[in-house]
């Protein structure tokens, strides 16, 4: 039974994936990264600069595109979803399957878009290979996180305009606004010990967390160590890294859990 239901989810995943892999937008998305990474590598010989530029763009673009693409996919495939709902399938499998299909194809085009230029550049065997891996892993995490958030929002809101608006707002919040309040808070309370607050606050924003994880791979990570012992201890150690990846994983799991919960109760 369990085996059977698993394969059904895989099938939905597979078909969503095949559907998307033929979508023009996925290719445009992939081509963008190809072009961008190629030109970065071509313009700059310094790989760590390339990684930083790519990171800056990815941290903004991956969450935005993942959210927009997912919510569009969800709303556009609403009738098909209804068809699926009428089949002898479990609801959670339908939605999680679709979600995995969307997040998976987004991740795939990201991976291809970044990897081909780096591979041609000769990243394998280079010392920078871990930076590249970190970038790719962060990209995958961000795709899955923001895709899940968008699915969750779409499930909660029948009204497309509301759904879109909310998704953009969530993206804007994590990409920019959160850091604004964060910085404001730090400046405002700068007479208090802030290390623990700072670390906690960065764990509550997946984009911040991703940025820190990439920066930790680069030389400039040393700048972060200036601040104090807790930073040094947590950011400079394997423990900190594992905690950061763990919380990224939680950022994926919690919205998926939300999708499941809403999907099981919702009327279509």
């Amino acid at each position, binding site marked *: 039974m369990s085996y059977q239901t698993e394969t*059904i989810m895989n*099938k*939905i995943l597979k*078909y*969503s994936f*095949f*559907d*998307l*892999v*033929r*979508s023009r937008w996925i290719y445009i998305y992939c081509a963008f990264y190809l072009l961008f990474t190629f030109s970065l590598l071509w313009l700059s010989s310094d790989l760590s600069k390339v990684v930083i530029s790519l990171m800056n763009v990815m941290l903004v673009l991956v969450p935005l595109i993942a959210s927009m693409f997912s919510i569009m996919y969800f709303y*556009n*495939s*609403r*009738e*098909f979803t*209804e*068809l*699926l*709902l*009428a*089949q*002898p*399938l*479990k*609801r959670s499998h339908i939605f999680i399957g679709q979600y995995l299909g969307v997040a998976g194809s987004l991740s795939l085009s990201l991976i291809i878009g970044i990897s081909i230029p780096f591979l041609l550049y000769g990243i394998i065997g280079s010392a920078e290979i871990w930076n590249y891996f970190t970038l790719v892993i962060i990209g995958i995490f961000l795709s899955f996180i923001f895709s899940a958030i968008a699915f969750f929002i779409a499930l909660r809101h029948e009204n497309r305009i509301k759904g879109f608006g909310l998704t953009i707002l969530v993206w804007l919040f994590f990409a920019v606004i959160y850091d604004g309040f964060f910085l404001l808070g730090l400046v405002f309370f700068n007479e208090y010990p802030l290390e623990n607050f700072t670390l906690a606050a960065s764990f509550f924003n997946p984009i911040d967390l991703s940025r820190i994880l990439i920066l930790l791979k680069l030389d400039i990570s040393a700048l972060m160590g200036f601040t104090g012992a807790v930073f040094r201890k947590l950011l400079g150690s394997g423990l900190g890294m594992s905690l950061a990846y763990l919380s990224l994983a939680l950022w994926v799991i919690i919205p998926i859990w939300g999708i499941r919960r809403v999907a*099981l*109760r919702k*009327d*279509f």
Partner: protein
Amino acid sequence: MISINNLHKAFGKNKVLQGIDLSFEGAGITAILGPNGSGKTTLIKCILGMVYPDKGDIQLGGQSIRHEWAYRDQLDYLPQIARFPENLTVLELFSLVKDLRKRTASGEELVELFGLKPFLNKRLSNLSGGTRQKVNIVQAMMFDSPLVIMDEPTAGLDPVAMIRLKEIIRREKERGKTILITTHLMNFVEEVADDVVFILEGKIHFKGSLSALKAQYGEAQLEQAIAHILEGKDPKIPNRFSSIC
């Protein structure tokens, strides 16, 4: 086969279903009629498990369907608007549905019947509305399930396809199936339906055979009979009813 007991459903303040009791047994074609917003679609969605009723129960073969999913293996559903993943081809859609249901299906004959062969390798996004509806019919009817639910099956069909559809419906009935249809086309109902259920404001206002309905209101035409129901109950209704004709 299927019995619905005291079904209630409200979306917010809007009470869509207010105590529906129905049961369908054995072979037969029932047309579910009613003006827009009367609760037809919600009723169907309740049977499909897409909408959870607030109160009441639906039983299929003696088993409650609440929060179940496996029972849907015993029903075929033809959705109202035929929209599918745009980038799949027709053939891929068929194999997807077959794949998901894990049932043997007899699609070829239906494909032949509707002349869909040339379209099998076309993407769904490139099909006209009528062709999509044919695809929609095939994907729903290719399984041999005892319960068939069709939501506006005639939408966008050309006269030839319409004839084919009627043939299929009659044939399925002969094979002992319970068939539920919603439609706006009254002569379609007159041609194929055995029984009629008329829903208004979430309540059943008539349930019985087509001939009984006509006889009750002394009208030869179904449309006239229905107009009588509406006039008799509520003088406002005829205006709204006009929208379904």
